[in-house]
């Protein structure tokens, strides 16, 4: 509980919204800046073939085209490309900025076309004459794993890396009465942010680059771009304008960003790039893309004993972040359950498809989806209610950190309470009754109820050590304050949340506080926003900075007021330092700032990652004549510790739930056998609108963490983690009595109908 009178925990309206909704945010493509006057426009000619050798590139026809400035190929660039992110991965898997010799996926950039005008780029690009000598493509990751077709013949294998247990336990399921196994597809999805990728680059007379880059963290982009360009980071200034959605796919820097910077330098003119939607669907990293084999064992009374998860991670054509994500999947494999034995393994392979990157949840949703499906499979096999199987096997509540048997240290949790809250909020028993009644009367529209219990990892550290973030607060003589943060909002509401935290400590009204981020000259250090880390580290840093600033103010006020610092208090009604017992003796923070600059920069370091958790219940109606699923209800308990602002938290949860349900029901990036993407426009890539989704039912539960003074864990990705298996389980549950055990995502009408047909045919065959 917050002290009385605190604004923490209240629904403060988002201060950033008037600008974003009425006066317009400033996105990279909207930027007006003297440094970008007379900028050229960069576009990319992309491979239309999944796998081929480039036999020739002829640029002569372009030169006479209206607006033509320049065109470049890999030979011109002489940049090393993006090396694999793990030192253990063979460097020959390096992703070039432009394809050199071989193209490995449809959408891979092959040539750069530079034009005076944006609209000329596509006309000029059409004149680039590239001859390809097709190679056999490999699209299926299992086929890729057989190494019959190699993407990198020099390396000799498509397997990029493997994450294996120290020894494989052949007796993992030895004492289990029941063992169930299934293959599960966690399908490839596209991040599809409203704002596609963009950049604007300008080299100064000091040969230093200023690059506007809509991303999740200017500092991480600065490091990544410096590596791609082979420059020291001191030569790069990255500025983050407003960002129209990222979902994990705007971290670091992509090859195209390096190309834009290179073009600006080569031509000695500022350069801009704004990606078209079609290009974005082909060439921004995709997410998920795991083939999983789950095996789960236990007893007929519902006790779970052992669990094995085998993952084949499709990395796409080059190992990007996607090659690392299975390690998170493995770490979170057992989820919220108390297994006696857990084993997991992952193999990462390249295929002739778009590279895989982080996507909201990034490795953890895949773990939850696997184990939650496995538990339902087990429940169906032994004929027990899936809620009861979960009740029987969830880890009991704990307040001290505990190992999960798979390499994660869960900080705090009460998984049974989250499940019971979700079940009672859903009216679970009534739902089961209605389900039975509908089945009994032969209703065409059956009811399915799906559960998911989840725990995830947020705010983890990097290889550099414990998770940390910096913040700087300065109070100005006019009574306003500025916060500099190393986190980087792209929709979350940092400006509101950080101002709340500073205001709560210092008494400066929220409307007088400006939050700044995303400029490496202004904020040289920072981890950006990803992995649901911002509040628990960036927010904790802001609170810490405000407290340290209050301490400094007391010391200075002590000199000024000739008082003992111990007798001085901060008066939050006046943003002033007062003498205890003599409130008329006071000096405001603004007055102190007028005497000498009043600011603090601090770094908050957490002891480790936190593990938010929860439970989701989905209610789905399935039309058995057509197969059509309709999501009727989605009830969520998302416990991310103490909530700073329920309005912001609800927004994160709604978006996450929608995105998670979308993976279960709608979205999939589909390739044909030749590696041609079939869902590269919004007419074909089926993300849902509000019309396809019910109003979500959000339940409140707050189990604090001790890892930061706010008691907060991460929440940005939680919605996507529980909802996907809850909705998928609900769809399967609706038709489970017909003998259906599993339907892969997205659970489309067609797949559901086909599953019903197969189950019905099988049942007839048994008669």
């Amino acid at each position: 509980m917050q002290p009385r009178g605190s604004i923490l925990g209240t629904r403060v309206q988002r201060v950033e919204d008037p600008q974003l909704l009425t006066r317009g945010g400033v996105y990279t493509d909207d930027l007006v800046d003297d440094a970008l006057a007379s900028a050229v426009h960069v576009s990319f000619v992309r491979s239309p073939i999944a796998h081929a050798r480039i036999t020739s590139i002829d640029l002569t026809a372009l030169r006479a085209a209206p607006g033509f400035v320049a065109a470049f190929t890999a030979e011109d660039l002489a940049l090393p490309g993006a090396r694999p992110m793990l030192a253990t991965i063979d460097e020959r898997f390096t992703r070039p900025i432009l394809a050199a010799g071989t193209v490995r996926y449809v959408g891979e950039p092959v040539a750069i076309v530079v034009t005076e005008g944006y609209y000329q780029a596509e006309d000029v690009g059409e004149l680039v004459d590239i001859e390809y000598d097709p190679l056999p493509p490999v699209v299926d990751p299992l086929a890729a794993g057989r190494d019959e077709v190699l993407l990198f013949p020099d390396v000799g294998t498509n397997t990029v890396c493997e994450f294996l247990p120290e020894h494989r336990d052949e007796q993992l399921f030895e004492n289990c009465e029941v063992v169930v196994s299934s293959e599960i597809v966690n399908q490839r999805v596209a991040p599809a942010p409203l704002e596609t990728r963009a950049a604007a680059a300008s080299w100064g007379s000091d040969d230093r680059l200023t690059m506007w880059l809509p991303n999740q963290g200017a500092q991480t982009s600065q490091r990544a771009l410096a590596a791609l360009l082979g420059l020291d980071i001191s030569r790069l200034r990255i500025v983050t304008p407003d960002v129209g959605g990222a979902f994990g796919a705007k971290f670091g820097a992509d090859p195209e960003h390096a190309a834009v910077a290179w073009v600006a330098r080569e031509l000695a003119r500022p350069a801009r790039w704004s990606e078209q939607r079609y290009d974005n669907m082909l060439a921004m990293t995709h997410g998920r893309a795991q083939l999983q084999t789950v095996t789960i064992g236990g007893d007929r009374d519902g006790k779970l004993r052992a669990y094995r998860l085998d993952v084949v991670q499709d990395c796409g054509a080059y190992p990007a972040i996607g090659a690392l994500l299975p390690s998170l999947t493995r770490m979170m494999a057992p989820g919220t359950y108390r297994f006696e034995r857990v084993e997991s393994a992952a193999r990462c392979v390249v295929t002739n498809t778009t590279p895989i990157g982080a996507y909201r949840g990034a490795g953890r949703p895949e773990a939850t989806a696997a184990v939650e499906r496995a538990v339902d499979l087990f429940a169906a096999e032994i004929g027990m209610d899936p809620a009861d199987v979960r009740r029987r096997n969830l880890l009991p509540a704990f307040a001290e950190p505990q190992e999960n048997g798979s390499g994660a240290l869960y900080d705090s949790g009460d998984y049974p309470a989250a499940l019971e809250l979700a079940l009672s909020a859903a009216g679970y028993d009534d739902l089961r009754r209605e389900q039975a009644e509908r089945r009994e009367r032969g209703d065409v529209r059956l009811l399915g109820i799906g559960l998911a219990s989840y725990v995830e990892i947020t705010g983890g550290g990097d290889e550099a050590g414990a998770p940390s973030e910096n913040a700087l607060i300065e109070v100005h003589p006019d009574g306003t304050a500025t916060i500099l943060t190393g986190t980087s909002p792209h929709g979350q509401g940092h400006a509101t949340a950080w101002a709340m935290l500073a205001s709560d400590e210092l008494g400066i009204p929220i409307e007088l506080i400006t939050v700044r981020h995303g400029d490496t000259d202004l904020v040289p250090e920072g981890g950006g926003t990803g992995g649901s880390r911002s509040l628990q580290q960036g927010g904790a840093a802001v609170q810490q900075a405000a407290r340290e600033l209050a301490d400094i103010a007391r010391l200075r006020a002590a000199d000024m007021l000739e008082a003992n610092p111990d007798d001085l208090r901060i008066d939050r009604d006046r943003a002033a330092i007062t003498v205890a017992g003599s409130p008329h003796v006071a000096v405001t923070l603004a007055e102190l700032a007028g005497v000498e600059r009043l600011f603090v920069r601090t770094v908050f370091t957490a002891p480790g990652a936190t593990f938010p958790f929860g439970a989701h219940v989905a209610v789905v109606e399935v039309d058995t004549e057509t197969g059509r699923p309709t999501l009727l209800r989605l009830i969520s308990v998302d416990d991310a510790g103490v909530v700073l602002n329920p309005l912001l938290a609800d927004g994160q949860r709604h978006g996450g739930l929608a995105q998670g349900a979308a993976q279960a029901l709608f979205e999939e990036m589909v390739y044909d056998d030749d590696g041609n993407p079939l869902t590269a426009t919004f007419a074909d890539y089926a993300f849902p609108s509000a019309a396809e989704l019910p109003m979500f039912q959000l339940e409140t539960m707050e189990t604090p963490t001790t890892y930061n003074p706010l008691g907060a864990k991460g929440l940005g990705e939680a919605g996507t983690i529980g909802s996907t298996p809850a909705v998928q389980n609900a769809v399967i549950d609706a038709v489970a009595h017909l003998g259906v055990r599993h339907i892969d995502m997205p659970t489309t009408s067609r797949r559901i109908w086909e599953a019903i047909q197969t189950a019905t045919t099988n049942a007839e065959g048994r008669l």
Partner: protein
Amino acid sequence: MIPAPFEYLRAHDVAHALDLLREHGDEAKLLAGGHSLLPMMKLRLARPTVLIDIAELADLDYVRVDGDTLAVGALATHARVGEAELVRAEAPLIAHSASLIGDPQVRHRGTIGGSLAHADPAADLPMAVLAAGATLVLEGPAGRREVDADDFFTGFFTTALEPDEILVEIRLPRRAGEPWGYEKFVRRSNDWAIVGVATVAGRVALANMGSAPLRAAETERALAAGAGIDAAAELAAENTDPVSDLHADPAYRRHLARVLVARALSSAPG
């Protein structure tokens, strides 16, 4: 996703539009609401070198009763067709069909004439006017001619329109109070139909069951002969040749057609 270069011309009236069409031949495309043509141009699947904008021909934007038919101007938007009291009363099937197209933005730009001339086999209005037994009025250099909806849709995105003709009016039999039914099977509300069914007055039309909207002739014959709904619906997919795509293979489409025809016939709200 930027169209290839094109010349933009704006027509003042139908006669002017016909002159421009004659002048530019099949290099030209008429632009009304643009919600089918422009996306195809942005993907460079369509590359007309001349666009003749007819969107402001106010004399083609109307809904009026003309004897025993309801006359709808080709430039009436989907929103207008869907919401006009006259259409809702006299041709409720058409009003309902128009109200399901795309999303509000699309419905306020897209026009009935544009949709019919585009002739997407998966679209709402081609199927609906076929079920309604509409007559389409085409105007060309030689004057006006009338074509039954049955003869208008000739194949995949092709119609009876000659390159120098404009679809100017849709004439609908007045069917106030007659039962009708409509089923649109979609994944998302703003999608094209995976399979669509429209029925009124014993006529049953299907969307996305072939290269053009078509009538479920066997079902209609069975109904006329007094068959029950279920028996008639069983024949809905006879003589159809539906495509296979991401959403459905031919077998599933035929199954959907049978189920949806049964539902459309059963629902037929008065």
